[in-house]
């Protein structure tokens, strides 16, 4: 493959990412699945990059989940988004950054709608004023948190202690990158690299020493959606989408998967367990599965943070094989201990997806 050909594609889609003074809004559910991620993002921005990033504790969901499940009508979603913007305005910020990719998609969609249909913006201002008494200004810049990590990837690399290189073979790690659908499939111009060759994660991987895998189902959705996932009986469709991706990436022998959405890593991580229990099939080496990381977790690892501070113990697919490849030290004994060292108990061992250390 001629990589320059791919790189030509991503050059068409560039966008402005704010540099400092961010107003941060969190994800509804991400802290359940990946508890360390948002905390790590704030830590990196504040301690490593000395950026000003602020979040208002009374900010709410953007209602993306509800909107995409047809439970929340669009007018309500627009008003909730407007309230978030009002909080940002009141705090004196202009740069908006979201933790969740669906949020990012919704904020982009709402801003586009207001742009093309100004009467909806007027109506929303009216609704917000009547409901809460608040007023808002539209943000100057809306970036996703992964855009910001992308923008400062070189600084992170320079401060970093580890590279995405297999210390035993000296080869770059083979990384599968997976973009949330709401990042650039809805509005290709709002994503770095567009929808065809989204560059935001590739940039991180390449600058941190890894190698990106191009496989046929690369652009395939992981199956999260919202509608199909909420009802248990429908999840067959969701798990089949992820399985199709796994089957396609398997021959390329990936070392890890990197994602930038709350739902995708949850799916790609947990479905490996579900597939192993339902069909007995595991991916990756030695039945350990393919580790799935969020971009904050990967940035944290590159910077040398303690893996258990990043929340990696909660991952279904064990991350230890990856840590050993990179050469990141960790204490297996501390994996399931609390912050004060108290024993939190251990999860049940899956039937086929092996724990890395059986006796821990």
């Amino acid at each position, binding site marked *: 493959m001629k990589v320059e050909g791919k790189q030509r594609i991503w050059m068409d889609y560039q966008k402005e990412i704010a540099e400092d003074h961010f107003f941060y809004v969190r994800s509804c559910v991400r802290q359940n699945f990946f508890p360390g991620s948002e905390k790590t993002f704030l830590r990196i921005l504040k301690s490593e990059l000395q950026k000003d990033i602020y979040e208002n504790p009374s900010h709410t969901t953007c209602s993306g989940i509800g909107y995409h499940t047809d439970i929340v009508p669009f007018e309500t979603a627009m008003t909730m988004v407007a309230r978030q913007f009002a909080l940002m305005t009141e705090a004196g910020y202009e740069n908006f950054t979201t933790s969740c990719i669906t949020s990012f998609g919704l904020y982009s969609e709402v801003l586009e709608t207001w742009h093309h249909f100004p009467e909806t913006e007027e109506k929303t201002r009216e609704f917000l004023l009547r409901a809460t008494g608040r007023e808002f200004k539209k943000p100057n810049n809306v970036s996703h948190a992964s855009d910001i990590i992308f923008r400062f990837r070189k600084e992170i690399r320079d401060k970093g202690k580890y590279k995405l290189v297999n210390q035993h073979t000296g080869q770059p790690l083979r990384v599968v990158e997976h973009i949330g659908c709401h990042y650039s499939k809805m509005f290709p111009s709002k994503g770095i690299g567009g929808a065809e060759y989204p560059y935001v994660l590739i940039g991180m991987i390449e600058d941190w020493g890894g190698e990106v895998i191009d496989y046929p189902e690369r652009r395939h959705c992981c199956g999260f959606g919202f509608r199909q996932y909420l009802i248990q009986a429908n999840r067959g469709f969701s798990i*089949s989408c992820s399985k199709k991706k796994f089957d396609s990436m398997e021959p390329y022998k990936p070392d890890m998967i990197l994602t930038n959405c709350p739902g995708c890593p949850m799916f790609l991580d947990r479905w490996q367990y579900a597939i192993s*229990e339902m069909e007995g099939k595991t991916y990756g080496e030695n039945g350990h599965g393919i580790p799935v990381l969020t971009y904050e977790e990967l940035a944290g690892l590159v910077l040398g943070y303690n893996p258990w501070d990043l929340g990696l113990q909660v991952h279904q697919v064990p991350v230890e094989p990856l840590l050993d490849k990179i050469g990141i030290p960790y204490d297996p004994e501390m994996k399931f201990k609390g912050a004060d060292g108290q024993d939190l108990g251990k999860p049940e061992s899956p039937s086929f997806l092996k724990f890395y250390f059986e006796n821990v």
Partner: protein
Amino acid sequence: MKSFGYTISEDRQIDFDANDRNMTGFINSIEPSIRLCLGCGSCTATCSAGHFTDLNIRRIHTLVQRGELQHLKKEIMKCMLCGKCQLVCPRGVNLRNLILLIHSALEKSGL
């Protein structure tokens, strides 16, 4: 194996490379006129059985060319060998022979 209340859907995409096309080769070598089909659908339009059963002769013989044999036996049973399809085919495909060959191939492969 555990069940979590849902099943993994089967991928319905035709995986051309994974399919067994031995039957295809067998049929094509004995009845080469099948290669002339251009997918016009005249055969299916006139098919006696096709109006009241799910027999779509154009579709199933195309599936045979791809090596997709899953529902072949059940569907092909509906053909009464009336020969109207062959009468109407603009390219002169010997459809009745094709159907007899499919039966023969199915028997041979124990399907």
